[in-house]
């Protein structure tokens, strides 16, 4: 009997190393590697088809990569400790049609054996303006409300690694501002946050670092200032110009 500590790795946060995934003849991920440390907010950027959602789903343990290694809070992805440490908001809200919003939150609490979860749930409902509709089924809610409900579920269990796939889609400006504030708070508490987004301004405002993907691999990784230098654009260029320059060249930086 070894008696070695749980999770042979000492790596905290999220580590993605050499991830590969092929769908039929399309290579969605091609040696993707990056890292999100505790307390860091990293934006995952890329054009359509770059492999962002595939990467998110592999990290969340929904898709199995063909090759590569994913470590979540020191535990290999797909293991029970990794599942307990991660929270995933998919691009499309994944709600049960037969459960109301309050019951969805209770389900998350039961799934993670949370004690004293009710005040946190109430705060999230209040923050995302869901208190009035807590007894309603998802089918009777707008897309934005459903997304906010899914967000509340993702934020409830106090994950060590938070994955948000296009979290700002369909959110009204107030909810988007609340989400940015919540994400900032969580990062301040040491949570590693990975946000996949098309919104370059959003990435610029909340992310401490951006990982730019194209054709399934990382073409640039750094702060906005570093990305400007890598892309060879002027210092006053906006992130869109940086993004276009990086993804057009499509070469690893």
């Amino acid at each position, binding site marked *: 009997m070894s*008696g070695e500590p749980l999770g042979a790795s000492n790596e905290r946060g999220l580590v993605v190393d050499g991830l590969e995934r092929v769908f039929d003849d399309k290579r969605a991920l091609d040696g993707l590697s990056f890292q999100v440390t505790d307390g860091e907010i990293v934006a995952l950027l890329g054009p359509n088809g770059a492999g962002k959602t595939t990467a998110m789903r592999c990290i969340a343990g929904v898709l199995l990569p063909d090759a590569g290694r994913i470590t979540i809070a020191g535990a290999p992805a797909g293991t029970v400790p990794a*599942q307990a440490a991660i929270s995933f908001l998919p691009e499309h809200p994944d709600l*049960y049609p*037969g*459960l109301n919003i309050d019951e969805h939150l209770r389900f998350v609490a*039961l*799934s*993670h054996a949370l004690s004293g979860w009710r005040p946190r749930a109430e705060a999230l409902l209040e923050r995302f303006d869901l208190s009035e509709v807590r007894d309603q089924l998802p089918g009777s809610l707008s897309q934005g409300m459903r997304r906010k409900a899914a967000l509340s579920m993702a934020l409830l269990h106090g994950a060590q690694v938070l994955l948000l796939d296009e979290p700002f889609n369909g959110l009204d400006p107030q909810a988007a501002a609340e989400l940015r504030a919540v994400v900032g708070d969580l990062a301040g508490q040491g949570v590693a946050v990975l946000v996949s987004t098309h919104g370059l301004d959003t990435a610029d405002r909340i992310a401490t670092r951006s990982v730019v993907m194209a054709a399934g691999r990382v073409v640039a990784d750094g702060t906005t200032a570093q990305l400007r230098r890598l892309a060879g654009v002027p210092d006053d260029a906006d992130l869109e110009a940086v993004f276009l320059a990086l993804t057009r060249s499509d070469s690893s930086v």
Partner: protein
Amino acid sequence: MTTTPGVGSIVRALSYVAVRDLTMRVRRLATHPVRLALLVAVIGSLGALQVGAIATRGQNPVGTPAGAVAGIALLLCISVFSAVRRSPIRLRPGDVAWLVPSSRGPRSLLAWHLGAGACRLAVFGIAAGVVAILRAGEVTLLAFQPAVALTLLALFLRGTAFLAHLSTTRGVPRTVAAGVAIAVIAPAALPFVVASLTGGPQPPLAVTRAAAVAGVVLDPLLAAIRAPDPTLWGPLMLAGGLVAGLAVLVVGLGHGYQDEAARRSWERASVAAAYQDGSPLAGPIQELVAARLPANVSSFTRLSNLTVERALLWRALANLRRSWRWDLRPTAVLIAASVTLAVLAPTIVVAPLGGLLLLALPGFRSGVVGELEHLAIRTIPGRPGAKIRAADALPVVLFTVELIAVAVPVVLVMGLPASLLVAAPGIAVANIASASLVALVVPTLGRRLAYSAALSGSAYLVMTAAGGALLGTPAPHVAGLAVLLVGTLWGGAAWSLAGRRLGPIGALS
């Protein structure tokens, strides 16, 4: 300087702990009169039974009731199933900190726990023997024969469980270890089970080689407990030799003993130690450690640990609260049809039951099929097998209730034994587990329905064959149990296979 503890010091330490433990238990008895009364009642009853046996020695019927052998076989199966999943030993802090890590510790631990269970029953038997001697007014060695038999029986049961667990720690897959053990126990016990259920004659012990082994070990033990007799000393010695051999084998293999509870406790201790030297993070981190890596973890799964099972079951119940009116409409129609036909057209009363079974063939009722449309079943923390069984639990219960409701008029009208209704859970488990397995293996809906119907249909055929074979015998009421057994085994196998497929999507490709 650390030294490896010798066997002597280990025995002394374990004896010290055992004496302290016994003292504490005796003190507790003094403050719990109900427990004390129960203990006295059990020992007194055993003693009273033995008084009669002593008075009529030499005149008691030879042999063991088949029901007792069947019961012991069931106990063996349960303990083996448990042992291949978790250690059969409930470790104490001292075991974790000191015994398991030392070189001779695991063997000593196994020997001690084998002996401790046996000694407990021996004490009961000896106390009952003393009571019997006092009441019979005659000092005879026969009064202690049940104590010997009880001790050997405890050793046999514990030894079998330990052996099953040790085989898994040596790389034998759990399903293989359990399968081999059941393959030995089941044929050995089957003649006794059938005899017990049918009330038929005692089966010959040499029905199979395995049955003969069971007979050699269990028959004298159970006979000596039930009715001590001077002629049983010989067979008891033979059984004792075989059980001692089992115990020696277990202790011999004991150096490979592993326990998940011990591993997690060590992790907790090492992490806590790393942060206890005045680190500013020591407080919060120790709280975290306490929450995530509890010490003195039980080797058994407690109900409070069944997090994912409770969550999925709760979700299914919450959903049912809103959907039952729609979900149960076809069943309500079939129940009404069944009752109506029972009154008006008894010759075709079986039609609604057939309809229900046909409707269930495509596997729409599987809880896993519904859960697979959502990510939670893959992303919430928990073992895949547990998730699958939890997702299917409510559908199994509902299908069982529906089957019974539709089948009751059929049973009444056709004059079939009511015990056939015990088959319902077996049919439900086989059907729903088959559908869940297919849902995890076959991605497209059309093919999924066809494969599900084929697999569930095969289960129906096997269950019908098992039940039908017994329906025409003098023990038709056993047919329901046969279907239940076959259905449960089929469903268990399907769930086990399904658990291997509930990984991330892509594991199938």
